[in-house]
């Protein structure tokens, strides 16, 4: 099977960047990471298609020189799914920002409590306590910057901006 080396390199880079971005705390970057990963997987589907050929219309092109149509169908389906999921993720990020004024993955309080308990017990055995303070630095590549990188004006701060989504609840009357 002949495949283009450039495509493979691009796919590998997309996968690497996607994984890197998904490990970030900011949800917007997680979304970007997911889009990169999705495109990398689609590219992989195109790579396994093999040598590019004529457009696969039945009866019009020579069937020995046609491209393999099946990966194209699979890629199309995968693109549609990625599209729908990213739309959902965007809505989720917006809602998360609405609730918490940040688009970051929040710390789980119970997790922190458990870690705190563990750390207190191990303090005598372990002299790596300084890690506690450095833990924000290791989750982001901008250690000195606030982890909420996007500044959006909100109607709580600036009068005249209405950005609250209509809710389905009984108080708004939007959904019924």
């Amino acid at each position, binding site marked *: 099977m002949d495949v283009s080396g450039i495509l493979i390199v691009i796919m590998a880079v997309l996968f690497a960047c996607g994984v890197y971005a998904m490990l970030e705390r900011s949800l917007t970057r997680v979304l970007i990471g997911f889009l990169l990963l999705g495109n990398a997987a689609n590219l992989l589907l195109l790579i396994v298609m093999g040598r590019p050929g004529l457009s696969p219309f039945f009866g019009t092109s020579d069937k020995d020189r046609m491209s393999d149509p099946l990966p194209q169908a699979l890629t199309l389906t995968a693109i549609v799914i990625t599209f729908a999921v990213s739309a959902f*993720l965007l809505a989720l990020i917006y809602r998360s920002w609405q609730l918490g004024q940040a688009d970051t*993955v929040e710390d789980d309080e119970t997790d922190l409590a458990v870690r705190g308990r563990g750390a207190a017990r191990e303090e005598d055995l372990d002299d790596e306590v300084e890690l506690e303070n450095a833990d924000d630095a290791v989750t982001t590549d901008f250690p000195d910057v606030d982890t909420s990188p996007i500044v959006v004006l909100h109607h709580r701060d600036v009068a005249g901006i209405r950005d609250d989504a209509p809710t389905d609840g009984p108080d708004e009357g939007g959904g019924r």
Partner: protein
Amino acid sequence: MNALVPLMVTLPLVGAAIALIAGRHRRTQVLVSIVTLSLVLIIAAVLLVAVDTGSPIAVSVGGWPVPFGIVLYVDRLSALLVVVSSIVLLAVLLFSVGQGAADGDDDTPVSIFHPSYLILAAGIFNAFIAGDLFNLYVGFEILLVASYVLITLGSTESRIRTGIVYIVVSLVSSILFLAAIAMIYGALGTVNMVQISERMTELPQETQLVLHLMLLVAFSIKAAVFPLSFWLPDSYPTAPAPVTAVFAGLLTKVGVYALIRTETELFRDNDVNTLLMIVALATMVVGVLGALAQAELKRILSFTLVSHIGYMVFGLAIATPAAIGATVYYTVHHIIVQTTLFLSVGLIERRAGSTSILRVKGLMRAAPVLAVLYFIPAINLGGLPPFSGFIGKFALFDAGAQSGTPLAMVVIVGGIVTSLLTLYALMRAWNLAFWREKDDHTETETLERIAYLGDAPAAGVQTERRVIPRIMTATTAGMVVVTIALTVFAGPLYDVCARIGESLLQPVHLSQLQEEAGR
């Protein structure tokens, strides 16, 4: 008969569309959902009888010839799982209808609950009857997208926080699955499962191993196999009670179903059984130890859920027909019992206003019916005879002992310990929530003994107490009856599972599939 197969997916999808249009009329929505799921249950039952007495049914969608188009493939395993999952979906639907009728819509926007729920059902059924890997992927995506909506229902702060963890983890596993499909297509030139199974043996072992492990990792995340199970106990407990019940019962089992197909059909002569044994042992033990450290019932149950996935992985690792049959029986048992337990915990939450076993007490006297509804599935999950949990575990251990390897013996011991610890975790909850009297003077002593639970997550959460509508109790009671039926009809059910075990390990040829699709 063949025309019935696609209906199992299209009916819920059409139902979802109608329910979405009828968003303002709750009664219509409820009616549509119940009718749709009942129809699927009837169709699946008819198909189960048909494929159990005859041969598997294959339908080529859109009339494309078999290895090229989409094939829906119903064998005994698919039909049995569709029957079981439609029973569970129907019961949970009735439960949520009861809850919605009592609470009104203040908590959750009911207008999107029914459509999402039906789409979830369509995705689950599609995954079970998919005849090619890509259709399985599409089934997974349908059910996952619906589950994203359901787990963040109402989009409160806690649900968004835990929902994000669940969604991001699911997305990664989906991408991995898609990449694995692409690699398999690159290696074999097909996505049809029967054809993959035929051609896979021609590949070198190393290539098979790479493909095998990619699929295993993708499915293990969905099935919550340790070490890929960390997301589950964190994200399930915050969702609404009916949603948690259906997720716990069914979503992980779709992953287990995919694992069963991978281990038996796709990779016949490439085995990673030693790895699976170790992973099974770790899943059982780590899961149940997590359950022991929890004070909140939904979290305890989420951890036991992870722990019991280990039994199914153990059955796959033994890989004899008897073991595969036992795995299928255990899967059926676990779907039903775990859902029932989550439903009865939903009732406890309403009755006592809390699911923390440190706070709830005196329920035995206050709600004796509820006590029965918790107790029977709890000892069933713990594996006491004569219940189905015992039968399933006994069959698994028996198959493991017959394989006779030292590692299998170690896992059997681990399984017995896990079973006892599960019983301990559930009975401790029973003692505290039900046996403990409201005015117990030995209370301080009891509380001192379990003081270490005081700082477990959500140990002190209290919500308002609400009345339990009759329909919720009746549904839970119905599910308890189904769990008992698993024991009473264990003979015929086990025979079907044994036949599934036999047939899964026998190679199917493409010509058979083509012949069945031609009929």
